[in-house]
């Protein structure tokens, strides 16, 4: 394949990444972006070119040793559900944006410690980035079958590296707040992770099923190699020990590599995504390892005896069979692995470089004088140049130092150096006593051992032969520490970690840390307790003015954002906005606001510059912390208790309210009853009075009075009957006798006694039947009563020669009966209330009609007892009553 063609493929591929990053930034909330798998896949930034090429080389030359790189993480990752969940919380509330921030904040927010950690990361990772560039460059030349050009300017690989540098410096610095999530980059990384796995699966299947006849074919053929057995067993306890130490190294690396910390902690958008990652990511690694073994041994079989670099079997095999497509795909897979590692590492290193070294040591004074736009521009610019510079540095490193070393050893050395941060890192979340001095001494001692044990032999021995002679002698002096059955790297790992951890623990126990360390120790170890109001847990005493701090904040956040943040703060802690002095909560709040932009250490320094802090003794801090912890527990208990009490009193108030309502309803009812009874009694009484006193009443008048007495007495007894009946209905004393009945027959039974009255008023009555079947289940005598009340009511309000029409139909398992009459419309506001007891008599806007005033109330109760509903509405020329009865 020509250089130009491959270069075009690379360009297209990078364009695709740009596009994905762009779309993801644009559509943040879409499901394909906002899901746990994107997070889990982005963690696979762990699998670099080393996995793609180096592991295959190791598998082919030194056997099982390729496995620990994957087994270590697989063993450790499940613990993330506990460890990383807490670290994510700590980082979130403290606005931590890098590994250096995380560790240095815990040990007293120390500027020097964060700078040292940054240096460690730079020294460990830049060669590692160089390694990726080496892989890109070498595979590029391998695929195009061109020699590596000595001249940087004419080497096509140089341009690939430049492209990557531009891409990452553009997308990596979109936000000035480094603790912000970079969805665009992360989505592009997730896509790359998917593609690199997908491409290696294609290669694996190609090798297993096209080049050979299945896995067992490779196994059988490979097992004829003399060294096959030796390379695929542990080789006794010694090999197993080496193997175990390698597992430990990579298990530590998966937690501590800056790019892993960045993807797993800083870019974690939801804690629950960790739950998916802890099974998905190990599965991903397992699938990867599955294919390394057959590819490595297939390579050995194909290129048996030839002088080829086993690290590039994955490209050489498809090339050997003239399969350009798979060759390019594997190249792209390797490129993906390299690019994602380079991008994420460069971004996270640039954040550390800017927030933990350049800004705190050089630019704080300048920032204090500038305004927000200028500062934001400066910070972004620093990071942009850092990213670009780091990649170029790595490129130079590759060109001048590691051209000849294998991928495998450089990667492992990186791991061991990064592992030196492990005691401080894990100590931060598990051990309160761990102190700054302990960390510093332990870390430096560990690094010195790594330097002399790993770096000097790796880089100097291979380049400077004279040095080698002198150094060899020096090294021989240390041979006392040699552990014969461990390899060089596991050995140095063992010694450096032993010394590092030992010094860290020993110094921490024997020397007291300062109060600030202890304060953050509490906050880190007991994060679950402080998560709600972490600002309260920050101990600070001294004099500080809100206006001074505000002034600083404005220089970084701008006026608008600062005021907004202050409002939120005042609201959260219920603080008067006029308050002039700042308390500890405000100090911590302000530091957090700045931390994302300029790092925790610089934030502290800036705030310190405008405040005056009093010294607090460690003992005092411990007391305050103990108190505040007790207070938090007490507060929680009190809140719970007061909530319970409030609920109880709410319940009581509700009960009381409903009793009052019931009492009033009862009073109203009694009033209405009395009122209803009084009207006929008045009539009876007056008639009786006249009849008794007046002896010479004409006979016809006398008769009229007597008839009056009779009708009014009937009305009285009707009212009393209805009241008692309704009361029984309401208290369920009248049982329903539900049977199957014919609804039309029931209606007829109800209508018959009324026909006489209907004829008298000359009203036209009709039925419309739209039912398919007529048998329904209900209590017939109650239903007759209901019909009679509704029809009687209709009759009452329909003028002479009016119309009453009843319609039967069924819909959605409901029997629906509508009774329409041409009576006067009921006022809209009364429609709902006509079913209340005595409603008619209470609001006599309409001409009073005979009746107890309970008919409709009885109707409603009957239909409710059947599980149905009744309502009235004005329609066209009259009023319609609708009865709905559910079918059983």
């Amino acid at each position, binding site marked *: 394949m020509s250089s130009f063609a491959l270069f075009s493929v690379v360009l297209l591929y990078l364009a695709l990444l740009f596009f994905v990053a762009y779309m993801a930034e644009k559509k943040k909330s879409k499901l394909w972006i906002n899901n746990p798998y994107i997070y889990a896949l982005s963690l696979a930034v762990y699998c670099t070119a080393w996995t793609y090429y180096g592991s295959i080389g190791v598998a082919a030359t030194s056997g099982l040793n390729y496995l620990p790189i994957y087994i270590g993480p697989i063993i450790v990752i499940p613990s993330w559900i506990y460890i990383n969940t807490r670290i994510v919380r700590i980082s979130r509330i403290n606005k931590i944006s890098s590994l250096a921030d995380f560790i240095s904040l815990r040990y007293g927010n120390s500027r020097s410690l964060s700078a040292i950690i940054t240096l460690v990361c730079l020294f460990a990772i830049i060669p590692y980035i160089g390694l990726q560039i080496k892989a890109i460059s070498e595979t590029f030349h391998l695929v195009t079958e061109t020699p590596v050009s000595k001249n940087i300017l004419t080497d096509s690989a140089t341009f690939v590296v430049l492209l990557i540098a531009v891409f990452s410096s553009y997308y990596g610095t979109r936000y000035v707040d480094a603790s912000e999530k970079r969805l665009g980059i992360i989505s592009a990384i997730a896509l790359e992770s998917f593609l690199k796995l997908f491409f290696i699966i294609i290669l694996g299947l190609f090798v297993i099923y096209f080049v050979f006849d299945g896995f067992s074919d490779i196994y059988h053929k490979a097992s004829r190699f003399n060294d096959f057995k030796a390379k695929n067993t542990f080789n006794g306890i010694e090999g197993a020990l080496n193997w175990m130490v390698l597992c430990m190294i990579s298990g530590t690396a998966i937690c501590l590599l800056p790019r892993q910390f960045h993807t797993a902690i800083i870019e974690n958008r939801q804690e629950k995504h960790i739950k998916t990652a802890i099974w998905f990511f190990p599965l991903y690694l397992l699938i990867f390892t599955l294919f390394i073994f057959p590819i490595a041994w297939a390579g050995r079989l194909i290129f048996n005896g030839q002088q080829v670099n086993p690290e590039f079997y994955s490209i050489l095999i498809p090339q050997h069979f003239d399969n350009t497509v798979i060759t390019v795909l594997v190249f792209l897979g390797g490129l993906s692995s390299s690019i994602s590692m380079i991008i994420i590492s460069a971004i996270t290193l640039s954040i550390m470089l800017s927030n933990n070294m350049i800004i705190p040591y050089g630019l704080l004074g300048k920032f204090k004088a500038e305004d927000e736009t200028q500062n934001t521009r400066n910070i972004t610019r620093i990071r942009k140049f850092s990213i670009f510079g780091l990649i170029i540095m790595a490129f130079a490193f590759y060109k001048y130092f590691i051209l000849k070393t294998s991928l495998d050893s450089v990667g492992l050395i990186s791991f061991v150096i990064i592992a030196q941060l492990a005691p401080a890192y894990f100590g931060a979340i598990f051990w309160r006593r761990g102190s700054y001095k302990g960390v510093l001494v332990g870390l430096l001692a560990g690094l010195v051992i790594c330097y002399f044990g790993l770096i000097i032999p790796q880089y100097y021995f291979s380049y400077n032969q004279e040095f080698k002679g002198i150094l060899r002698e020096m090294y021989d002096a240390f041979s006392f520490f040699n552990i014969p059955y461990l390899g060089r790297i596991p050995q140095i790992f063992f010694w450096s970690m032993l010394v590092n951890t030992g010094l860290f623990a020993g110094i921490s126990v024997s020397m007291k840390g300062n109060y600030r360390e202890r304060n953050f120790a509490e906050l880190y170890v007991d994060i679950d307790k402080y998560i709600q109001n972490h600002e309260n847990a920050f101990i600070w005493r001294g004099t500080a003015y809100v206006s001074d701090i505000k002034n600083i904040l404005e220089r970084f956040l701008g006026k608008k954002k600062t005021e907004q943040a202050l409002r939120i703060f005042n609201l959260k802690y219920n603080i008067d906005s006029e308050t002039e002095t700042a308390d500890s909560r405000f100090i911590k709040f302000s530091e957090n606001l700045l931390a994302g932009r300029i790092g925790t250490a610089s934030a502290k320094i800036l705030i310190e510059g405008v405040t005056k802090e009093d010294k607090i003794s460690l003992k005092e801090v411990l007391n305050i912390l103990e108190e505040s912890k007790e207070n938090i527990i007490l507060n929680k208990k009190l809140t719970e208790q007061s909530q319970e009490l409030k609920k109880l009193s709410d319940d009581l108030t509700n009960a009381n309210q409903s009793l009052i309502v019931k009492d009033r309803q009862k009073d109203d009812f009694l009033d209405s009853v009395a009122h209803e009874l009084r009207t006929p*009694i008045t009539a009876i009484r007056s008639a009786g009075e006249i009849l008794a006193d007046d002896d010479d009443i004409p006979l016809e008048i006398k008769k009229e*009075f007597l008839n009056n007495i009779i009708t009014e007495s009937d009305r009285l007894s009707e009212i009393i009957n209805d009241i008692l009946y309704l009361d029984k209905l309401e208290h369920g004393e009248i049982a329903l006798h539900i049977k199957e009945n014919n609804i039309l027959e029931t209606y007829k039974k109800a209508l018959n006694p009324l026909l006489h009255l209907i004829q008298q008023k000359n009203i036209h009555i009709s039925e419309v039947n739209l039912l398919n079947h007529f048998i329904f289940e209900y209590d017939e005598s109650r239903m007759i009563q209901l019909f009679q009340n509704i029809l009687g009511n209709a009759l009452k309000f329909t003028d002479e020669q009016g119309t009453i029409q009843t319609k039967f139909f069924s819909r959605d398992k409901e029997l629906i009966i509508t009774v329409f009459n041409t009576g006067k419309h009921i006022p809209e506001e009364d429609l709902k209330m006509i079913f209340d007891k005595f409603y008619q008599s209470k609001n006599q806007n309409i001409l009073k009609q005979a009746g107890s005033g309970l008919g409709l109330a009885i109707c409603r109760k009957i239909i409710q007892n059947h599980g149905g509903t009744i309502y009235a509405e004005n329609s066209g020329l009259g009023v319609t009553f609708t009865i709905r009865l559910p079918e059983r």
Partner: protein
Amino acid sequence: MSLEYSFKKNGYDVYIARDGTEVLEFLKTMIPDVILLDIMMPNLDGFSTLNIIKQDEKLKDTKVIFLSAKNNPKDIEKGLEMGADAYVTKPYSIKKLMQLIEEMV
């Protein structure tokens, strides 16, 4: 009906209105000595009717008596405050009502 009979028998002229608006119709043509007003009436209730009567200069000598089943003290107070001359609750004694009217006129 029994009232109509009793008043006529005692020599009064009796006119019966079925609601407040009818009362006002009657008053355009006559000035009665006594008006017996129910409170709960269709169209225009007793209180509103009384209000209109009280504003009419011609009717300043006409006595107004509320006759109502509303017997709670609040309604009685309201009726008297509005300027009714008496408030009689149902059921009443025709004899006593008659005496009351005799005293007034």
